[in-house]
């Protein structure tokens, strides 16, 4: 059994002079719920469209369920996707849309339609035309259509958009259930980072078409604890100075960052101590420990690198 579901290898995409994706490389393992994070126009949807072959691939290589070329279409049969807006035939009812998808996939099991409608919570609306559904219900229908063939890999592009708070909670439960009960691997993008944080096991950050970072949830939590985030030129010397000053517990995050877990320290005095001892301080910020904060810091760091 393939443990790597998807490998994106040095993929680039241009639209005229606009570079939508620039040398993107990453992979998704079986069982992951992979949260893809990026601003509008960062390249998330383009990436998903390339994976599903809705956009022709010109540069790089994408391997899906072990297939990269001639049998890619076969691999797509094991993929469910809702890209951009969920699409369904508006004049058909929820059940008829699912029946149509069942026929397309050669699904004989009639109970599967009932189970899927039930799973996404649309039992009460199964005889309602798609055009009469609310946005949240349409999102659920889109998900149901993607789930019906029981895919190994589910691709969801901004699925939480337009959902009300209770809809978001239900959707989150649904994704977790899918992942845990059916071992469905999920690639999901969303602007609602708090939600993405709650469902994802791994995160990929994309910015201006570049894949800038990938972290597991554990690493993110570790790197993203709340406290005072200190950006320094010499992390080793800074750590020694913090020890000498009895500043309390702190974590060295990387070559340039230290997280001090004590919020009540005197940051002005700390700055003076470090600078006096020859450690350049690039930033002292309060880190609240959210995915949003992590993302903002990452973008700031990225902006700093670009300058």
């Amino acid at each position: 059994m393939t443990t790597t579901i998807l490998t994106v290898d040095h993929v680039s995409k241009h639209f005229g002079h606009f570079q939508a994706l620039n040398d993107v490389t990453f992979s998704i393992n079986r069982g992951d719920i992979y949260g893809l994070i990026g601003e509008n126009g960062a390249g998330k949807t383009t990436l998903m469209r390339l994976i599903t072959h809705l956009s022709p691939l010109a540069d790089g290589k994408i391997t899906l369920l072990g297939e990269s070329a001639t049998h890619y279409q076969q691999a797509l049969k094991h993929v469910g996707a809702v890209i951009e807006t969920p699409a369904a035939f508006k004049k058909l009812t929820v059940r008829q849309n699912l029946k149509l998808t069942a026929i397309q996939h050669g699904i004989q099991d009639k109970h599967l339609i009932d189970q899927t409608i039930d799973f996404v919570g649309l039992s009460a609306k199964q005889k309602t035309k798609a055009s009469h559904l609310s946005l949240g219900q349409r999102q659920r229908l889109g998900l149901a259509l993607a789930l019906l063939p029981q895919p190994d890999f589910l691709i969801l592009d901004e699925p939480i958009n337009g959902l009300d708070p209770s809809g978001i909670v239900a959707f989150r439960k649904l994704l977790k259930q899918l992942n845990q009960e059916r071992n469905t691997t999920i690639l999901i993008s969303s602007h609602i980072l708090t939600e993405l944080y709650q469902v994802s096991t791994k995160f990929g950050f994309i910015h201006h078409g570049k894949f800038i970072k990938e972290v597991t949830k554990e690493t993110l939590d570790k790197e993203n604890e709340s406290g005072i985030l200190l950006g320094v030129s010499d992390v080793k010397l800074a750590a020694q100075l913090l020890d000498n000053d009895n500043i309390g517990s702190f974590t060295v995050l990387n070559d340039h960052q230290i997280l001090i877990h004590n919020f009540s320290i005197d940051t002005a005095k700390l700055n003076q101590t470090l600078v006096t001892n020859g450690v350049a301080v690039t930033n002292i910020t309060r880190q609240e420990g959210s995915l949003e904060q992590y993302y903002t810091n990452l973008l700031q760091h990225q902006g700093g690198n670009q300058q």
Partner: protein
Amino acid sequence: MINQLRADFYRQTHTFGHYLLLILVILFSVITVYSKNVGGIMVSAPADFLGRLANMQWTLLSGTRGLTISSSVLMYAFISIFVMVIGYEFSQQTYKNTLVSGISRSGFIIAKFVTMLLDIFIQVIAFYLAGILTGIALGRKIGTSWGNLFSTTLLTAVIVTFFIGVVFSMAIVILMLTSSLIGSAIFIVAFPMLISILSMITKWNWLKYIDFFSVTVKISLKEITVNQFQPYIWTSFAILAVCFGLALTIIKRKEL
């Protein structure tokens, strides 16, 4: 591809528009046969025949021929088939679900085209059957043997379907190229008129090979032999092949 065909037929059995179209086609047939009023859009309409046809004693056979002359009008009604079978996929963006389901691009285009052909054939058969039944109801004579009447009707229905299919294949290319359902519909409407106008202005003889409805009428009236018909059929197959190749190339390179 077979599954896609089955899915398309399932969708159509649940689409009100198809039943409405069937009713309209049958009504058009009944009115044409009842009133003996025929007409259509073609380059070389046998005008003398139209005049004679209106004044002659109508039989079931002449009724069938009258319907054939009017069959070019059907193409305008069948734009709705084009819209329902392939247009909805693009306007409602459901092609994304279809293509992500693993069907090849060629499978997708062939399935859509075959579905349209079968739809058109069913409607055309209904068109002729309604005409024959109306003739019977009006107490008209057969005008030939039953065998000849049905073989002529069947042959004409196949030819009408085929030629409408050729025009629709060009419209599919327009749809793939422009993503405009309106543009494709305008093409279907304009094509026969454009051929007629061009023919009148330029007098280009080769235009007769793509004036599909004039050919259909001539075959129905037995004005051309099977040998004479061959260049027409090969031209149509060539157009079909080119259109299929173009549509496939476009959809493979297109941002969907």
